[in-house]
């Protein structure tokens, strides 16, 4: 089964599960835990009663208030990262039943419809674990700095409106600008591998999210002022040439951002940029 087929199968399955969800059931949360960097991983399971609208967050909240495993062991509340709980901040990303996604929009009815069904929660694997399900995604933000993902405005003083933009350009930029830096695209990417050493981040693969953000700012009237510097970064080590075209990124993006289109567009710009550099040396 291809990735695309697997994804639509997954969506169908979740819809079917919703219909057969049993009221008043309990499900098992199998959670991969780790007390901190360098500490061993371990699995703990919890039996959690499911109520109307339960999601992974409400289940983790329940475990926090009732931290006893299925074996009757008293343990600590699970640690995880979260904030908005509306799938718009990107914080609560984790690997659920083997697939990366936000935990707030993960409804238990869709994943564990029957009594005793199991849901596994694991931290993302491409970032260092801080504790339990919380990972350190600083590198993801660092990569936004690498491509200078901003508009170089002159200052915050009153200077009239920005460049006029067409309806179509706005629509295109808005779609890219919905990226919430969650890191799903990086978790799914075979080329993006875990790098613990901060010193090495700037030469490691930059990832689909940052390539797409480079395109967002290259397309802005003032933002394109830094296009040359962005492209310099993207044709250097850890840049766009390291993309293996697996196209997993676009399949797991929770916001449906056209990441492969961005990679294609930046790829073409990179070719032009390299040729220009060759002749202007």
């Amino acid at each position, binding site marked *: 089964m291809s990735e695309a087929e697997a994804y639509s199968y997954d969506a169908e399955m979740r819809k079917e599960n*919703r219909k057969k969800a049993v009221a008043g059931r309990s499900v098992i949360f199998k959670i991969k835990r780790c*007390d*901190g960097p360098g500490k061993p991983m371990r699995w703990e399971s919890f039996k959690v009663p499911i109520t*109307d*609208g*339960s*999601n992974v967050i*409400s289940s983790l*909240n329940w475990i*926090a*208030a009732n*931290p006893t495993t299925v074996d009757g062991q008293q343990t*600590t*509340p699970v*640690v995880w990262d*979260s*904030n*908005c*709980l*509306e*799938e*718009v*901040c*990107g*914080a609560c990303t984790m690997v659920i039943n083997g697939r990366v996604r936000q935990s*707030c929009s993960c409804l238990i*009815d*869709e994943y564990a419809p029957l009594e005793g069904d199991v849901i596994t929660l694991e931290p993302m694997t491409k970032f260092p674990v801080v*504790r339990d399900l*919380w990972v350190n*995604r600083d590198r993801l*933000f660092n990569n*936004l*700095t690498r491509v*200078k*993902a*901003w*508009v*170089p*405005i002159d*200052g*915050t003083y*009153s*200077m009239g*409106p*920005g460049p*006029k*933009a*067409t*309806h179509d350009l*706005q629509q295109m930029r*808005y779609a890219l*600008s*919905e990226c*919430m*830096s969650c890191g799903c695209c990086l978790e799914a990417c075979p080329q993006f591998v875990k790098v613990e050493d901060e010193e090495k981040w700037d030469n490691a693969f930059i990832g689909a999210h940052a390539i797409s953000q480079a395109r967002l*700012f290259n397309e*802005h009237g*003032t*933002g394109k002022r830094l296009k040359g510097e962005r492209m310099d970064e993207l044709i250097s080590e850890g840049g766009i040439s390291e993309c293996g075209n697996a196209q997993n990124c676009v399949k797991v993006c929770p916001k449906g951002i056209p990441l492969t289109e961005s990679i294609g567009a930046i790829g073409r710009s990179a070719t032009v940029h390299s040729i220009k550099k060759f002749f202007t040396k």
Partner: protein
Amino acid sequence: MSDQKRVIVVGGGLAGLAASIRIAEAGVGVDLFSMVPVKRSHSVCAQGGINACNDVARQQGYSEYQHFDETLIGGDFLNDQHPVLEMTNWAPKIIDLLDRMGVPFNRSNEGFRDLRLFGGSLFKRTHFAGATTGQQLLYALDEQTRRFASEGKIHMKEFWEFLWPIIEDGRCVGIVAQDMRTMQIQSFRADAVVMATGGCGLVFGKSTNSVICTGGAASRCFQAGAWYGNAEMIQVHPTAIPGADKCRLMSESARGEGGRVWVPAKKGDTRRPTDIPENERYYLLEERYPKYGNLVPRDIATREIFDVCVNDHMGINGTNQVYLDLTHKDPDYLTEKLGGILDIYEKFAGEDPRYTPMRIFPAVHYSMGGMWTTYTAGDYQPSAPLGAHVPGADVPVGTEPGLGLKMGAHNNAMTNITGLYAFGEVNFAYHGATRLGANALLSCIFDGLCNGVSVVNYVRDGGHTPASEVSQGVFDAATKQEQAKHDALLETTANATGDRAYNPYQIAFELGEEMNAASTVVKTGPGLEKCLSKVEELRERYAKVELGDGAMWTNQSLSFTRTVGDMLIMGEMIAKSGLLREESRGSHYRTDFPERDDEKFWKTSVAKFNTETGKSDIEFVEVKAGLIKLRPRDYGKTDDSGPKPQSAKKETAGAS
């Protein structure tokens, strides 16, 4: 010029980022503390848009002054008037700046910024970027912050929790904070501290707010001596999607497109909604308000839904939920008109609202109250306050900076503690007793940009001892104080009884339930008194709280448990202010005092923490007015002498 002076900004939402950018740009170093990567701040949740006068509306008779007038009547005249005038005057310039930063505002056919109609106005004055305006504005400021950070002008302290303001000789000279990962507690020096820490929705249990919106930081400043204004003014949005973990907003346009609100007529009817015949449904708003039906103003809708569930126990299956039903409409029509918000509902509630009625309930949404702040009024000082402004009439005041507030005055948005500022939702000044929709994003960015200049002037010209020269002992003592509190909490794991009464999550849950029931939509004297005694009981239990995790590394339980103590203090203050305000005004509705009482209560409630009792002392002080006269707040009622207000007018108020 090397400038050794530094400013600490606490909170990285719109207000904190706008302040950081403005202060760093002026050449003063900024240390920005946030509990989350700033790009994940709660501002990201705002949807509707941001209000500002614009060229089209101006040609139709709109003006910055009209926006000012609307904001005051919206707030039922409890707003401080001068800062609001300055804010609405700045609004169009703020939109221009955001536009220059690259915010993808929706565009018209000709490429101009598109506009939408929003609450409290008959003019299109709301700018928007899809249905995620807050996200787009936050990202623009996040990008500029990253730019300054890459240049070393802003020092990011993400995943750090604010614990205490350090006050020496009545002046704020730094903060104590804790690294949420390593758990290290440390003091930081600053020549000024800007609190931009948002609202306190979690005091009410489940709200539309994000996980970090506990009010904990504001509560700690309050306990350290900062005053708190209009704590009782909490906005409750009528239609939210109740979730197991939080309440997510459902835009009121669903009712605008024909949505009907109902509950089963028979109490405890467990049938599926589609199996309940028409004559066994109670369409509460249509029956109670035959004229307006489902399109009654939002505060009435909120109160009636609340009444049916809480007082009559007629909610769906006895829960606090009612149906918002669109299933009688053509699904294709619904997709075209409401697609985005219906998809959100489907994603989280797991049901398609085109075929199954949505289940909704009012939810706490925004805190108009916040840390009390002062200012220096600007040049516009009419000899007597003016009456209502009529669209198209001559505007009595210009739009240049400095008319509402004296630009750069040291005390603009400063709390009663010198050098401690409050910006954004945690500042009480702008929204009075109710906030108009799409004014929140504006007030946050305005505070940062306008009053950031005041912070810079204060640290440069304040004439005080630089924080770098304050005795180290002051900072060591502050660290020690917070370390001791921290260690005492950790020690509670040692002799834990496991009694649920002392479980912090249980205490927080009970606080939320009580505050939501007694101190939100419909308040009564006896209800608030009962609430206060419940909070007192919870505080007694909290004194014996038992922490469930003794780890010295990334201990979220410890952070949460500590915050619960601060939330209990907020709860007491909110309930007591509500009890003492014996009138109804804006969001504050007392059944025992249903009318607005200007003589006694056209006043700001100011709470001060009493260190002896551990509780708040409340006094009522004059609202800083003088620009616009009091008048009745009567929209929503029919008025035969003039044009009828559009039903959409009040309907969409606050829908951001």
